[in-house]
């Protein structure tokens, strides 16, 4: 895969193509997309956790940038971000995690808007491209805000991945679907990130609606925590499955975070194995 060269090139990357390739080449029913909080419990652990995810079958890594005020996140990811910051995580450190993991899989950075704008959207996105990051998710930058970010991502070859929610109106869904690059992050529930016993009752409808609105792959996230959930999402037509809180919890509870997260990702991958 030539895409691994992107990590060290320094010029524009083709993050969109690299992500598309990952969706196309997955050997599972849907691409498996683990989320990990950058710098949690430590930066070194993050790299090992990410590598364990790749070893256990991750197709794309979603890497969280810890932030002081993560409005879209539930208590587990919020607390992990707070701990990562307290342990000294910063932009440079988290991007080193991204650089390391981007050697083997496409990395999509999840980062709140104020951090994107702090150095200026163009400078921030250029820095991501130079690090080998393939895509960017900004959970508090809905369609209509932040044209600078979208422009910078196009210029630098990064996929700006939009979110859609069960509450998104048909008009907005159509516009978001048309603008989606890389994939469309489809929020399965009305709420913040976090584990739930069941998938949202309307998740299948949410996936169907999302798929009808875009030519980009549709990845389902928020509240997916078990192999059963992952399989249900794939059976509903999701092209990708994002698992976050469950893995962050595993990272926090274990003496060997990488081992613990890798084991959970392995179970999720098995859950997504094609029927024989």
């Amino acid at each position, binding site marked *: 895969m030539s895409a691994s060269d992107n990590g060290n090139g320094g010029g524009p990357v083709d993050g969109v193509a690299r992500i598309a390739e990952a969706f196309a080449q997955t050997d599972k029913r849907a691409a498996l997309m683990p989320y990990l909080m950058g710098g949690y419990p430590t930066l070194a652990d993050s790299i090992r956790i990410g590598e364990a995810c790749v070893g256990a079958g991750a197709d794309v890594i979603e890497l969280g940038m810890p932030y002081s005020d993560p409005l879209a996140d539930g208590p587990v990811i919020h607390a992990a971000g707070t701990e990562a910051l307290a342990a000294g995580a910063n932009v440079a450190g988290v991007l080193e995690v991204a650089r390391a993991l981007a050697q083997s899989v496409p990395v999509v950075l999840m980062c709140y808007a104020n951090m994107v704008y702090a150095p200026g959207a163009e400078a921030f996105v250029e820095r991501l491209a130079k690090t080998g990051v393939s895509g960017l998710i900004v959970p508090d930058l809905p369609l209509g805000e932040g044209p600078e970010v979208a422009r910078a991502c196009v210029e630098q070859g990064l996929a700006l991945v939009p979110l859609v929610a069960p509450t998104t109106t048909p008009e907005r869904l159509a516009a978001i679907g048309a603008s989606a690059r890389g994939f469309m992050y489809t*929020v399965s529930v009305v709420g913040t990130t976090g584990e739930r016993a069941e998938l949202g009752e309307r998740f299948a409808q949410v996936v169907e609606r999302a798929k009808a609105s875009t030519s980009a792959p549709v990845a389902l996230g928020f509240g997916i925590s078990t192999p059963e959930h992952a399989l249900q999402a794939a059976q509903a037509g999701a092209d990708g499955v994002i698992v976050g809180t469950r893995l962050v919890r595993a990272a926090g509870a274990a003496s060997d975070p990488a081992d613990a997260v890798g084991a959970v990702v392995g179970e999720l991958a098995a859950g997504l194995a094609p029927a024989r």
Partner: protein
Amino acid sequence: MSAVEHRFGQYGGQFVPETLMPALAELEQAWVAARDDPAYRDELNGLLRDFGGRPTPLYRALRLSERVGRAIYLKREDLNHTGSHKLNNALGQALLARRMGKKRVIAETGAGQHGVATATVSALLGLECVIYMGTEDTRRQRPNVQRMELLGASVQPVDAGARTLKEATSAAIRDWVTNVQSTHYVIGSAVGPAPYPAIVRELQRVIGEEARAQILEREGRLPGRVIACVGGGSNAIGTFTAFLEDEQVELIGVEAGGEGIDTARHGAPLTVGGRAGILHGSRSAVMQDEEGQIVEAHSISAGLDYPGAGPQHAYLRDSGRARYEAVTDREALDAFRVLARLEGIIPALETAHALAWTLAQSDGELDLVCLSGRGDKDLAEVLAG
């Protein structure tokens, strides 16, 4: 052209999770319809008068004026029902929630004044009410916690971060993201994503409109300066709005200087300046570090202990129409005692900041200060200090 301002120059906007975007659109639509509906206006104005006690008096402070050698007028929002200007906004938004068919309201509170106002109107209208409040604030504003609970609200303590207003607001927004279909978020200040800053301003502008008419009647002229404290900035924008076109009237917002604006411990983002930032859904003046992490504010006054400010204030600052100054904890405490001793009025610690700045000026001839709230809630904190 939007019916309600979304931006004030480069400030404002809607930096929220997608889940909330339809709710913001619904709110804006409901607000525009209500605003233009005589039935809504009549009900609101009737309640402001008969339930709230409006219009509030404009009082020429006798001994304070004597002491500084010029006239100081106090707009007595402390005499509004529940003890602060917060009722003006809470009543308007609760009536709006009822129009939208939402039976549950949530709010954040720092000093507890907005929480008490929201709990009060929820009791009045029979709405379920949940108030988010940092645990540092439930400690230092204990009487207001008791009032909210007595009024039937559930007070949810928030233990994250510095356990103050910023975290309470974040917790309220997370609740709203989760319960958006059943719940209206009664934001308490002129902050948040559009259309909130404009809605809150419109519901608070009654302060300045009354005060302007009252001072013209009493003095036959406009004040030289209009002064109000600024946390998020709702009493200030409500007071300033009526005077925006009166170019000869200086508008001064007084922020929390905490331990001094040359230290890291203050709550004065407008005064200190620097790069704009995004907090709680809008772009405005924000206390943040180089990488964009929001920095904790500090103020002795829970209502000003906030690292952001309303987007219209940032715009008024940049345009030069208003200016922003900071007053330290110590200066505010001194003014708190001065007003009590000289006028027999115990002001809120928030309000004491506006008074402290005013008392420190040696020039001027006619000042109008928004006395935004009363200070019973602050007694324990002040007497301990």
